[in-house]
Protein backbone atom coordinates (compact mmCIF):
# COMPACT_ATOMS: atom_id res chain seq x y z
CA UNK A 1 0.00 0.00 0.00
CA UNK A 2 3.02 2.31 -0.07
CA UNK A 3 1.92 3.09 -3.61
CA UNK A 4 -0.76 5.35 -2.08
CA UNK A 5 1.90 7.75 -0.80
CA UNK A 6 2.99 9.36 -4.09
CA UNK A 7 -0.71 9.61 -4.95
CA UNK A 8 -1.05 12.50 -2.47
CA UNK A 9 1.36 14.51 -4.61
CA UNK A 10 0.83 13.13 -8.12
CA UNK A 11 -2.97 13.23 -8.15
CA UNK A 12 -3.46 16.93 -7.23
CA UNK A 13 -0.48 17.91 -9.40
CA UNK A 14 -1.94 16.09 -12.40
CA UNK A 15 -5.38 17.54 -11.69
CA UNK A 16 -3.86 21.03 -11.44
CA UNK A 17 -2.31 20.56 -14.89
CA UNK A 18 -5.66 19.34 -16.19
CA UNK A 19 -7.40 22.37 -14.67
CA UNK A 20 -4.76 24.53 -16.31
CA UNK A 21 -5.66 22.90 -19.63
CA UNK A 22 -9.34 23.62 -18.95
CA UNK A 23 -8.34 27.22 -18.31
CA UNK A 24 -6.63 27.60 -21.70
CA UNK A 25 -9.42 25.78 -23.54
CA UNK A 26 -12.03 27.82 -21.63
CA UNK A 27 -13.90 24.67 -20.61
CA UNK A 28 -15.82 24.24 -17.34
CA UNK A 29 -15.34 21.22 -15.10
CA UNK A 30 -12.44 22.25 -12.85
CA UNK A 31 -14.91 22.62 -9.95
CA UNK A 32 -16.03 19.01 -10.17
CA UNK A 33 -12.47 17.81 -10.75
CA UNK A 34 -11.16 19.60 -7.63
CA UNK A 35 -13.96 18.27 -5.47
CA UNK A 36 -13.43 14.71 -6.69
CA UNK A 37 -9.66 14.87 -6.22
CA UNK A 38 -9.93 16.43 -2.75
CA UNK A 39 -12.53 13.86 -1.63
CA UNK A 40 -10.38 11.02 -3.02
CA UNK A 41 -7.31 12.29 -1.15
CA UNK A 42 -9.25 12.53 2.10
CA UNK A 43 -10.58 8.99 1.58
CA UNK A 44 -7.04 7.79 0.89
CA UNK A 45 -5.76 9.49 4.06
CA UNK A 46 -8.46 7.73 6.10
CA UNK A 47 -7.88 4.45 4.28
CA UNK A 48 -4.17 4.49 5.03
CA UNK A 49 -5.01 4.14 8.73
CA UNK A 50 -6.19 0.62 7.98
CA UNK A 51 -3.07 -0.30 6.00
CA UNK A 52 -0.35 1.17 8.18
CA UNK A 53 0.35 -1.11 11.14
CA UNK A 54 0.31 0.77 14.42
CA UNK A 55 3.46 2.85 15.09
CA UNK A 56 5.33 1.80 11.98
CA UNK A 57 6.73 3.80 9.10
CA UNK A 58 5.67 3.63 5.51
CA UNK A 59 8.45 4.58 3.11
CA UNK A 60 8.23 5.09 -0.62
CA UNK A 61 11.45 5.66 -2.58
CA UNK A 62 10.71 8.23 -5.24
CA UNK A 63 11.50 6.80 -8.67
CA UNK A 64 13.46 4.00 -7.04
CA UNK A 65 16.53 6.15 -6.41
CA UNK A 66 18.32 5.88 -3.14
CA UNK A 67 19.79 8.85 -1.27
CA UNK A 68 21.81 11.04 -1.67
CA UNK A 69 20.53 11.49 -5.23
CA UNK A 70 17.00 10.28 -4.66
CA UNK A 71 14.51 11.05 -1.99
CA UNK A 72 11.64 9.32 -0.33
CA UNK A 73 8.22 9.92 1.11
CA UNK A 74 7.70 8.91 4.72
CA UNK A 75 4.46 8.33 6.55
CA UNK A 76 4.74 8.09 10.32
CA UNK A 77 2.31 8.99 13.07
CA UNK A 78 3.00 12.72 12.91
CA UNK A 79 2.80 13.06 9.14
CA UNK A 80 -0.26 10.79 9.03
CA UNK A 81 -2.22 13.02 11.40
CA UNK A 82 -1.23 16.08 9.41
CA UNK A 83 -2.05 14.53 6.06
CA UNK A 84 -5.46 13.48 7.40
CA UNK A 85 -6.31 16.95 8.71
CA UNK A 86 -4.87 18.80 5.71
CA UNK A 87 -6.83 16.78 3.17
CA UNK A 88 -10.00 16.92 5.26
CA UNK A 89 -9.86 20.71 5.39
CA UNK A 90 -8.88 20.89 1.71
CA UNK A 91 -11.91 18.79 0.80
CA UNK A 92 -14.26 21.04 2.79
CA UNK A 93 -12.62 24.11 1.23
CA UNK A 94 -13.25 22.68 -2.24
CA UNK A 95 -16.86 22.00 -1.27
CA UNK A 96 -17.34 25.49 0.17
CA UNK A 97 -15.72 27.11 -2.87
CA UNK A 98 -18.41 25.73 -5.19
CA UNK A 99 -21.03 28.16 -3.91
CA UNK A 100 -18.76 30.85 -2.48
CA UNK A 101 -16.67 31.45 -5.59
CA UNK A 102 -19.72 31.88 -7.90
CA UNK A 103 -19.40 35.66 -7.80
CA UNK A 104 -15.77 35.58 -8.95
CA UNK A 105 -14.68 35.34 -12.56
CA UNK A 106 -11.92 32.96 -13.70
CA UNK A 107 -12.87 30.16 -11.34
CA UNK A 108 -10.90 27.58 -13.34
CA UNK A 109 -7.67 29.41 -12.51
CA UNK A 110 -8.69 29.45 -8.85
CA UNK A 111 -9.20 25.69 -8.78
CA UNK A 112 -5.89 25.06 -10.58
CA UNK A 113 -4.08 27.12 -7.94
CA UNK A 114 -5.98 25.41 -5.13
CA UNK A 115 -4.91 21.98 -6.41
CA UNK A 116 -1.31 23.19 -6.68
CA UNK A 117 -1.55 24.41 -3.09
CA UNK A 118 -2.77 20.98 -1.95
CA UNK A 119 0.15 19.39 -3.85
CA UNK A 120 2.62 21.60 -2.00
CA UNK A 121 1.06 20.96 1.41
CA UNK A 122 1.01 17.18 0.95
CA UNK A 123 4.58 17.24 -0.34
CA UNK A 124 5.82 19.19 2.68
CA UNK A 125 4.11 16.76 5.03
CA UNK A 126 5.32 13.55 3.38
CA UNK A 127 8.83 14.37 2.22
CA UNK A 128 11.86 12.88 3.92
CA UNK A 129 14.59 15.17 2.67
CA UNK A 130 15.39 18.85 2.91
CA UNK A 131 15.57 19.67 -0.75
CA UNK A 132 12.18 18.20 -1.64
CA UNK A 133 10.83 19.97 1.45
CA UNK A 134 12.04 23.29 0.07
CA UNK A 135 10.58 22.65 -3.38
CA UNK A 136 7.12 21.73 -2.07
CA UNK A 137 7.28 24.60 0.42
CA UNK A 138 7.77 26.96 -2.50
CA UNK A 139 5.05 25.32 -4.60
CA UNK A 140 2.60 25.84 -1.73
CA UNK A 141 3.82 29.36 -0.97
CA UNK A 142 3.75 30.52 -4.60
CA UNK A 143 0.20 29.33 -5.16
CA UNK A 144 -0.77 30.92 -1.84
CA UNK A 145 0.59 34.31 -2.97
CA UNK A 146 -1.43 34.11 -6.16
CA UNK A 147 -4.58 32.97 -4.32
CA UNK A 148 -4.37 35.81 -1.81
CA UNK A 149 -4.28 38.29 -4.71
CA UNK A 150 -7.17 36.50 -6.40
CA UNK A 151 -9.88 39.05 -5.59
CA UNK A 152 -7.80 41.68 -7.40
CA UNK A 153 -8.85 44.65 -5.30
CA UNK A 154 -6.50 47.07 -3.56
CA UNK A 155 -6.47 45.37 -0.15
CA UNK A 156 -5.86 41.95 -1.69
CA UNK A 157 -3.00 43.11 -3.89
CA UNK A 158 -1.35 44.90 -1.00
CA UNK A 159 -1.65 41.84 1.23
CA UNK A 160 -0.28 39.58 -1.51
CA UNK A 161 2.70 41.88 -2.05
CA UNK A 162 3.57 41.88 1.66
CA UNK A 163 3.11 38.13 1.86
CA UNK A 164 5.29 37.60 -1.22
CA UNK A 165 8.21 39.67 0.01
CA UNK A 166 8.15 38.28 3.56
CA UNK A 167 7.50 34.73 2.37
CA UNK A 168 10.36 34.81 -0.14
CA UNK A 169 12.74 36.21 2.48
CA UNK A 170 11.73 33.39 4.81
CA UNK A 171 12.24 30.84 2.02
CA UNK A 172 15.74 32.15 1.34
CA UNK A 173 16.60 31.87 5.05
CA UNK A 174 15.45 28.27 4.91
CA UNK A 175 17.45 27.66 1.73
CA UNK A 176 20.69 28.94 3.29
CA UNK A 177 20.01 26.68 6.26
CA UNK A 178 19.57 23.74 3.88
CA UNK A 179 22.78 24.71 2.08
CA UNK A 180 24.65 24.73 5.40
CA UNK A 181 23.21 21.31 6.26
CA UNK A 182 24.47 19.97 2.93
CA UNK A 183 27.87 21.59 3.36
CA UNK A 184 28.27 19.98 6.79
CA UNK A 185 26.93 16.49 6.17
CA UNK A 186 26.99 16.01 2.39
CA UNK A 187 23.42 14.78 2.25
CA UNK A 188 19.93 16.24 2.09
CA UNK A 189 18.27 13.20 3.60
CA UNK A 190 16.71 14.04 7.00
CA UNK A 191 17.28 10.59 8.49
CA UNK A 192 20.92 10.56 7.40
CA UNK A 193 21.51 14.10 8.62
CA UNK A 194 20.09 13.17 12.02
CA UNK A 195 22.54 10.26 12.25
CA UNK A 196 25.63 11.83 10.77
CA UNK A 197 25.63 15.45 11.91
CA UNK A 198 29.15 15.95 13.34
CA UNK A 199 29.15 16.53 17.07
CA UNK A 200 31.97 19.09 16.96
CA UNK A 201 30.15 21.44 14.54
CA UNK A 202 28.09 23.13 17.22
CA UNK A 203 28.60 26.66 15.82
CA UNK A 204 27.31 25.57 12.40
CA UNK A 205 24.42 23.80 14.09
CA UNK A 206 23.48 26.96 15.98
CA UNK A 207 23.57 28.96 12.72
CA UNK A 208 21.38 26.39 10.97
CA UNK A 209 18.89 26.36 13.84
CA UNK A 210 18.65 30.15 13.91
CA UNK A 211 18.07 30.26 10.14
CA UNK A 212 15.38 27.54 10.31
CA UNK A 213 13.76 29.18 13.33
CA UNK A 214 13.55 32.52 11.50
CA UNK A 215 12.40 30.96 8.21
CA UNK A 216 9.80 28.55 9.52
CA UNK A 217 8.84 31.00 12.25
CA UNK A 218 7.95 33.47 9.51
CA UNK A 219 5.88 30.79 7.75
CA UNK A 220 4.15 29.94 11.05
CA UNK A 221 3.65 33.62 12.01
CA UNK A 222 5.38 33.49 15.39
CA UNK A 223 5.37 36.96 16.82
CA UNK A 224 8.32 38.93 15.56
CA UNK A 225 7.54 37.53 12.09
CA UNK A 226 3.74 37.74 12.14
CA UNK A 227 3.14 40.98 10.23
CA UNK A 228 1.92 39.30 7.03
CA UNK A 229 -0.73 37.08 8.62
CA UNK A 230 -3.60 39.45 9.54
CA UNK A 231 -3.42 41.17 6.14
CA UNK A 232 -3.43 37.96 4.10
CA UNK A 233 -6.04 36.18 6.18
CA UNK A 234 -8.37 39.15 6.10
CA UNK A 235 -7.94 39.86 2.38
CA UNK A 236 -7.93 36.41 0.76
CA UNK A 237 -11.22 34.83 -0.36
CA UNK A 238 -12.80 33.12 2.68
CA UNK A 239 -12.09 29.50 1.63
CA UNK A 240 -8.43 30.43 1.13
CA UNK A 241 -8.34 32.17 4.52
CA UNK A 242 -9.67 28.93 5.99
CA UNK A 243 -6.94 26.91 4.29
CA UNK A 244 -4.24 29.44 5.19
CA UNK A 245 -5.22 29.49 8.84
CA UNK A 246 -6.25 25.87 9.23
CA UNK A 247 -3.50 24.14 7.30
CA UNK A 248 -0.77 26.27 5.77
CA UNK A 249 0.65 28.02 8.84
CA UNK A 250 0.66 24.63 10.56
CA UNK A 251 2.21 22.47 7.87
CA UNK A 252 4.66 24.94 6.33
CA UNK A 253 5.51 26.44 9.70
CA UNK A 254 4.93 24.37 12.80
CA UNK A 255 5.05 20.86 11.31
CA UNK A 256 8.27 21.47 9.38
CA UNK A 257 9.86 23.20 12.36
CA UNK A 258 8.95 20.42 14.78
CA UNK A 259 10.08 17.72 12.35
CA UNK A 260 13.45 19.41 11.97
CA UNK A 261 13.94 20.41 15.60
CA UNK A 262 12.86 17.13 17.18
CA UNK A 263 13.65 14.50 14.59
CA UNK A 264 16.70 15.87 12.80
CA UNK A 265 18.68 17.98 15.27
CA UNK A 266 17.20 16.88 18.57
CA UNK A 267 15.56 19.15 21.11
CA UNK A 268 17.79 20.85 23.65
CA UNK A 269 17.03 22.89 26.74
CA UNK A 270 18.15 26.19 25.20
CA UNK A 271 16.09 25.63 22.09
CA UNK A 272 13.05 24.81 24.16
CA UNK A 273 13.57 28.01 26.17
CA UNK A 274 13.75 30.10 22.96
CA UNK A 275 10.55 28.50 21.67
CA UNK A 276 8.83 29.05 25.03
CA UNK A 277 9.66 32.75 25.07
CA UNK A 278 8.59 33.19 21.44
CA UNK A 279 5.34 31.33 22.03
CA UNK A 280 4.54 33.24 25.23
CA UNK A 281 4.96 36.58 23.45
CA UNK A 282 2.93 35.24 20.51
CA UNK A 283 0.04 34.16 22.75
CA UNK A 284 -0.25 37.46 24.59
CA UNK A 285 0.34 39.78 21.63
CA UNK A 286 -2.01 37.85 19.32
CA UNK A 287 -4.70 37.87 22.01
CA UNK A 288 -4.33 41.59 22.78
CA UNK A 289 -4.33 42.63 19.13
CA UNK A 290 -7.42 40.54 18.34
CA UNK A 291 -9.48 42.46 20.92
CA UNK A 292 -9.38 45.82 19.16
CA UNK A 293 -10.43 44.57 15.74
CA UNK A 294 -13.65 45.53 13.98
CA UNK A 295 -13.12 43.39 10.88
CA UNK A 296 -14.31 39.87 11.74
CA UNK A 297 -11.71 38.15 9.56
CA UNK A 298 -8.92 40.28 11.02
CA UNK A 299 -10.12 39.39 14.52
CA UNK A 300 -9.96 35.70 13.65
CA UNK A 301 -6.54 36.14 12.04
CA UNK A 302 -5.05 37.68 15.19
CA UNK A 303 -6.64 34.92 17.24
CA UNK A 304 -4.89 32.43 14.89
CA UNK A 305 -1.57 33.98 15.88
CA UNK A 306 -2.45 33.48 19.54
CA UNK A 307 -3.43 29.83 18.93
CA UNK A 308 -0.20 29.15 17.02
CA UNK A 309 1.55 30.41 20.16
CA UNK A 310 -0.29 27.84 22.28
CA UNK A 311 0.59 25.05 19.80
CA UNK A 312 4.28 25.96 19.84
CA UNK A 313 4.18 26.36 23.64
CA UNK A 314 2.95 22.78 24.00
CA UNK A 315 5.53 21.45 21.58
CA UNK A 316 8.37 23.40 23.22
CA UNK A 317 7.81 21.78 26.62
CA UNK A 318 9.34 18.50 25.49
CA UNK A 319 7.23 16.31 27.77
CA UNK A 320 4.91 13.72 26.17
CA UNK A 321 1.78 15.47 27.50
CA UNK A 322 3.00 18.84 26.23
CA UNK A 323 3.72 17.47 22.75
CA UNK A 324 0.36 15.75 22.73
CA UNK A 325 -1.36 18.96 23.82
CA UNK A 326 0.42 20.95 21.12
CA UNK A 327 -0.45 18.47 18.38
CA UNK A 328 -4.02 18.16 19.68
CA UNK A 329 -4.43 21.93 19.73
CA UNK A 330 -3.12 22.12 16.18
CA UNK A 331 -5.67 19.43 15.20
CA UNK A 332 -8.49 21.30 16.96
CA UNK A 333 -7.50 24.64 15.54
CA UNK A 334 -7.56 23.07 12.08
CA UNK A 335 -11.21 22.14 12.72
CA UNK A 336 -12.36 25.33 14.45
CA UNK A 337 -10.65 28.11 12.51
CA UNK A 338 -11.73 27.00 8.99
CA UNK A 339 -15.29 26.87 10.38
CA UNK A 340 -14.96 30.43 11.70
CA UNK A 341 -13.59 31.67 8.38
CA UNK A 342 -16.38 29.85 6.52
CA UNK A 343 -18.82 31.64 8.85
CA UNK A 344 -17.15 34.98 8.18
CA UNK A 345 -17.46 34.32 4.44
CA UNK A 346 -21.14 33.42 4.77
CA UNK A 347 -21.80 36.55 6.85
CA UNK A 348 -19.93 38.66 4.29
CA UNK A 349 -22.02 37.16 1.47
CA UNK A 350 -25.28 37.81 3.31
CA UNK A 351 -24.60 41.27 4.74
CA UNK A 352 -22.00 42.66 2.34
CA UNK A 353 -19.74 43.78 5.17
CA UNK A 354 -17.09 42.38 7.51
CA UNK A 355 -17.33 45.25 9.99
CA UNK A 356 -18.78 44.21 13.36
CA UNK A 357 -20.19 47.71 13.92
CA UNK A 358 -22.34 47.44 10.80
CA UNK A 359 -23.97 44.12 11.72
CA UNK A 360 -26.05 42.87 14.60
CA UNK A 361 -28.82 40.50 15.57
CA UNK A 362 -27.88 37.87 13.00
CA UNK A 363 -29.00 35.03 15.25
CA UNK A 364 -32.52 34.64 13.89
CA UNK A 365 -31.66 35.78 10.39
CA UNK A 366 -28.67 33.47 9.77
CA UNK A 367 -29.35 30.59 12.19
CA UNK A 368 -26.83 27.99 10.91
CA UNK A 369 -23.96 30.44 10.68
CA UNK A 370 -24.79 31.97 14.07
CA UNK A 371 -25.08 28.64 15.86
CA UNK A 372 -21.77 27.42 14.47
CA UNK A 373 -20.14 30.78 15.27
CA UNK A 374 -21.17 30.29 18.90
CA UNK A 375 -19.83 26.71 18.88
CA UNK A 376 -16.57 27.85 17.30
CA UNK A 377 -16.11 30.81 19.64
CA UNK A 378 -16.65 28.68 22.74
CA UNK A 379 -14.46 25.89 21.39
CA UNK A 380 -11.50 28.11 20.51
CA UNK A 381 -11.70 29.94 23.84
CA UNK A 382 -11.33 26.58 25.54
CA UNK A 383 -14.70 26.11 27.20
CA UNK A 384 -15.91 22.58 27.95
CA UNK A 385 -17.30 20.34 26.47
CA UNK A 386 -15.77 21.36 23.14
CA UNK A 387 -12.48 20.12 21.71
CA UNK A 388 -10.49 23.29 22.41
CA UNK A 389 -10.95 22.83 26.16
CA UNK A 390 -9.12 19.49 26.23
CA UNK A 391 -6.13 20.56 24.18
CA UNK A 392 -5.64 23.78 26.12
CA UNK A 393 -5.97 21.86 29.36
CA UNK A 394 -3.32 19.35 28.21
CA UNK A 395 -0.90 22.16 27.38
CA UNK A 396 -1.53 24.02 30.64
CA UNK A 397 -1.20 20.86 32.75
CA UNK A 398 1.98 19.89 30.90
CA UNK A 399 3.43 23.37 31.46
CA UNK A 400 2.65 23.13 35.16
CA UNK A 401 4.07 19.58 35.38
CA UNK A 402 7.37 20.59 33.82
CA UNK A 403 7.64 23.48 36.26
CA UNK A 404 6.87 26.29 33.81
CA UNK A 405 4.12 27.84 35.88
CA UNK A 406 4.62 31.21 34.24
CA UNK A 407 3.98 29.72 30.79
CA UNK A 408 0.85 27.98 32.13
CA UNK A 409 -0.37 31.33 33.40
CA UNK A 410 0.39 33.00 30.06
CA UNK A 411 -1.65 30.36 28.23
CA UNK A 412 -4.57 30.84 30.64
CA UNK A 413 -4.42 34.61 30.15
CA UNK A 414 -4.23 34.08 26.39
CA UNK A 415 -7.40 31.96 26.54
CA UNK A 416 -9.20 34.72 28.44
CA UNK A 417 -8.08 37.28 25.82
CA UNK A 418 -9.35 34.96 23.06
CA UNK A 419 -12.67 34.59 24.86
CA UNK A 420 -12.92 38.37 25.22
CA UNK A 421 -12.31 39.02 21.53
CA UNK A 422 -14.82 36.38 20.46
CA UNK A 423 -17.39 37.71 22.93
CA UNK A 424 -17.05 41.09 21.21
CA UNK A 425 -17.79 39.32 17.91
CA UNK A 426 -20.73 37.38 19.38
CA UNK A 427 -22.36 40.30 21.17
CA UNK A 428 -21.76 42.68 18.31
CA UNK A 429 -22.69 40.55 15.34
CA UNK A 430 -24.73 37.54 16.41
CA UNK A 431 -26.78 38.92 19.33
CA UNK A 432 -27.86 42.47 19.98
CA UNK A 433 -30.15 44.75 18.08
CA UNK A 434 -30.77 43.81 14.43
CA UNK A 435 -28.58 46.06 12.36
CA UNK A 436 -27.81 46.11 8.65
CA UNK A 437 -29.45 44.07 5.92
CA UNK A 438 -29.35 40.33 5.30
CA UNK A 439 -29.70 39.72 1.59
CA UNK A 440 -29.81 35.95 1.36
CA UNK A 441 -30.32 32.75 3.28
CA UNK A 442 -27.23 30.58 3.62
CA UNK A 443 -27.08 28.21 0.62
CA UNK A 444 -26.87 24.55 1.63
CA UNK A 445 -23.51 24.08 -0.10
CA UNK A 446 -22.08 26.75 2.20
CA UNK A 447 -23.89 25.44 5.27
CA UNK A 448 -22.78 21.83 4.73
CA UNK A 449 -19.01 22.26 5.40
CA UNK A 450 -19.81 24.51 8.37
CA UNK A 451 -22.15 21.93 9.88
CA UNK A 452 -19.63 19.11 9.30
CA UNK A 453 -16.91 21.07 11.10
CA UNK A 454 -19.23 22.05 13.97
CA UNK A 455 -20.14 18.38 14.34
CA UNK A 456 -16.44 17.52 14.42
CA UNK A 457 -15.87 20.06 17.22
CA UNK A 458 -18.56 18.35 19.30
CA UNK A 459 -17.45 14.83 18.45
CA UNK A 460 -13.77 15.43 19.14
CA UNK A 461 -14.66 16.99 22.49
CA UNK A 462 -16.73 13.93 23.42
CA UNK A 463 -14.37 11.21 22.17
CA UNK A 464 -11.04 12.52 23.45
CA UNK A 465 -9.78 9.08 24.64
CA UNK A 466 -10.44 7.56 21.21
CA UNK A 467 -8.80 10.47 19.38
CA UNK A 468 -5.79 10.45 21.68
CA UNK A 469 -5.28 6.70 21.35
CA UNK A 470 -5.58 6.37 17.59
CA UNK A 471 -4.56 9.77 16.21
CA UNK A 472 -2.45 11.61 18.76
CA UNK A 473 -0.40 8.89 20.44
CA UNK A 474 1.27 7.69 17.22
CA UNK A 475 2.14 11.31 16.44
CA UNK A 476 3.59 11.83 19.91
CA UNK A 477 5.58 8.61 19.57
CA UNK A 478 7.14 9.76 16.31
CA UNK A 479 8.01 13.20 17.73
CA UNK A 480 9.32 11.67 20.93
CA UNK A 481 11.58 9.28 19.04
CA UNK A 482 13.75 12.33 18.56
CA UNK A 483 16.76 11.60 16.44
CA UNK A 484 15.94 7.90 16.67
CA UNK A 485 13.85 8.69 13.60
CA UNK A 486 16.94 8.04 11.49
CA UNK A 487 17.50 4.59 12.98
CA UNK A 488 13.89 3.60 12.34
CA UNK A 489 14.49 4.09 8.66
CA UNK A 490 16.38 0.81 8.59
CA UNK A 491 19.74 2.08 7.40
CA UNK A 492 18.19 3.91 4.49
Amino acid at each position, binding site marked *: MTLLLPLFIVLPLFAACLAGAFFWLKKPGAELLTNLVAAALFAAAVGLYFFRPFNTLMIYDLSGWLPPGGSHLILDGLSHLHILVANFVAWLVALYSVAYMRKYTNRTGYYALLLLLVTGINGVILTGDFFTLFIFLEIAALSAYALVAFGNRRAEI*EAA*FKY*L*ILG*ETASLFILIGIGLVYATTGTYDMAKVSQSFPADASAVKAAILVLFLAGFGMKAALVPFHAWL*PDTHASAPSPISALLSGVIIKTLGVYALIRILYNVFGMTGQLSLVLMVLSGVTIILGGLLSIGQNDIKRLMAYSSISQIGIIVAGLSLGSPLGIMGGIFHSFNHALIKPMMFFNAGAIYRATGTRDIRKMGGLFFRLPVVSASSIVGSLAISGLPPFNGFWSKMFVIVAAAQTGNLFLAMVIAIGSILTLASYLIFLTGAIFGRPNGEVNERTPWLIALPIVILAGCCFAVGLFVPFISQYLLNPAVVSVFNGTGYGKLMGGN
Partner: protein
Amino acid sequence: MISYLGCFGLFMIGLYGVMVKRHIYKIVISVLIMEFAVDSFLVLIGNRKWGTALIVLSATLIAAAIIIRVQESFGTLDADELKELKG
Protein backbone atom coordinates in the same frame (compact mmCIF):
# COMPACT_ATOMS: atom_id res chain seq x y z
CA MET B 1 36.76 31.71 2.63
CA ILE B 2 36.64 35.17 1.07
CA SER B 3 34.00 34.02 -1.39
CA TYR B 4 31.79 32.71 1.42
CA LEU B 5 32.06 36.08 3.11
CA GLY B 6 31.17 37.70 -0.22
CA CYS B 7 28.00 35.61 -0.38
CA PHE B 8 27.14 36.58 3.15
CA GLY B 9 27.73 40.25 2.38
CA LEU B 10 25.58 40.05 -0.75
CA PHE B 11 22.78 38.43 1.26
CA MET B 12 23.00 41.16 3.88
CA ILE B 13 22.85 43.84 1.17
CA GLY B 14 19.67 42.22 -0.15
CA LEU B 15 18.18 41.95 3.33
CA TYR B 16 19.00 45.60 3.98
CA GLY B 17 17.31 46.55 0.72
CA VAL B 18 14.14 44.62 1.55
CA MET B 19 13.88 46.30 4.92
CA VAL B 20 14.85 49.85 4.00
CA LYS B 21 13.95 50.56 0.36
CA ARG B 22 10.49 51.95 -0.35
CA HIS B 23 10.21 51.63 -4.11
CA ILE B 24 8.55 48.37 -5.09
CA TYR B 25 11.06 47.61 -7.88
CA LYS B 26 13.91 48.08 -5.44
CA ILE B 27 12.30 45.73 -2.93
CA VAL B 28 11.89 42.99 -5.55
CA ILE B 29 15.45 43.53 -6.81
CA SER B 30 16.68 43.20 -3.23
CA VAL B 31 14.92 39.83 -2.98
CA LEU B 32 16.67 38.86 -6.23
CA ILE B 33 20.04 39.92 -4.78
CA MET B 34 19.42 37.66 -1.80
CA GLU B 35 18.52 34.88 -4.19
CA PHE B 36 21.78 35.30 -6.13
CA ALA B 37 23.69 35.25 -2.86
CA VAL B 38 22.05 31.97 -1.82
CA ASP B 39 22.54 30.53 -5.30
CA SER B 40 26.25 31.34 -5.32
CA PHE B 41 26.51 29.84 -1.85
CA LEU B 42 25.00 26.62 -3.18
CA VAL B 43 27.52 26.70 -6.06
CA LEU B 44 30.36 27.21 -3.60
CA ILE B 45 29.44 24.21 -1.49
CA GLY B 46 29.52 22.21 -4.71
CA ASN B 47 25.98 21.17 -5.28
CA ARG B 48 24.13 23.13 -7.91
CA LYS B 49 20.44 22.41 -8.04
CA TRP B 50 18.83 24.30 -10.87
CA GLY B 51 15.49 23.88 -9.14
CA THR B 52 16.15 26.82 -6.82
CA ALA B 53 16.83 29.25 -9.64
CA LEU B 54 13.62 28.15 -11.36
CA ILE B 55 11.59 28.50 -8.18
CA VAL B 56 12.78 31.98 -7.37
CA LEU B 57 12.33 32.91 -11.02
CA SER B 58 8.66 31.93 -10.75
CA ALA B 59 8.40 33.95 -7.54
CA THR B 60 9.73 36.91 -9.51
CA LEU B 61 7.11 36.34 -12.20
CA ILE B 62 4.34 36.42 -9.58
CA ALA B 63 5.95 39.54 -8.10
CA ALA B 64 5.88 41.13 -11.57
CA ALA B 65 2.19 40.29 -11.96
CA ILE B 66 1.43 41.79 -8.55
CA ILE B 67 3.47 44.91 -9.34
CA ILE B 68 1.41 45.46 -12.49
CA ARG B 69 -1.77 45.21 -10.40
CA VAL B 70 -0.33 47.57 -7.77
CA GLN B 71 0.43 50.11 -10.49
CA GLU B 72 -3.09 49.71 -11.93
CA SER B 73 -5.06 50.01 -8.71
CA PHE B 74 -2.90 52.27 -6.53
CA GLY B 75 -1.39 54.38 -9.30
CA THR B 76 1.98 54.39 -7.56
CA LEU B 77 5.00 52.17 -6.97
CA ASP B 78 5.84 53.57 -3.54
CA ALA B 79 5.43 50.86 -0.90
CA ASP B 80 4.62 53.54 1.68
CA GLU B 81 1.49 54.37 -0.29
CA LEU B 82 0.18 50.82 0.17
CA LYS B 83 -1.76 51.51 3.33
CA GLU B 84 -5.16 49.99 2.72
CA LEU B 85 -4.62 47.50 5.55
CA LYS B 86 -3.82 48.70 9.03
CA GLY B 87 -4.27 47.69 12.63
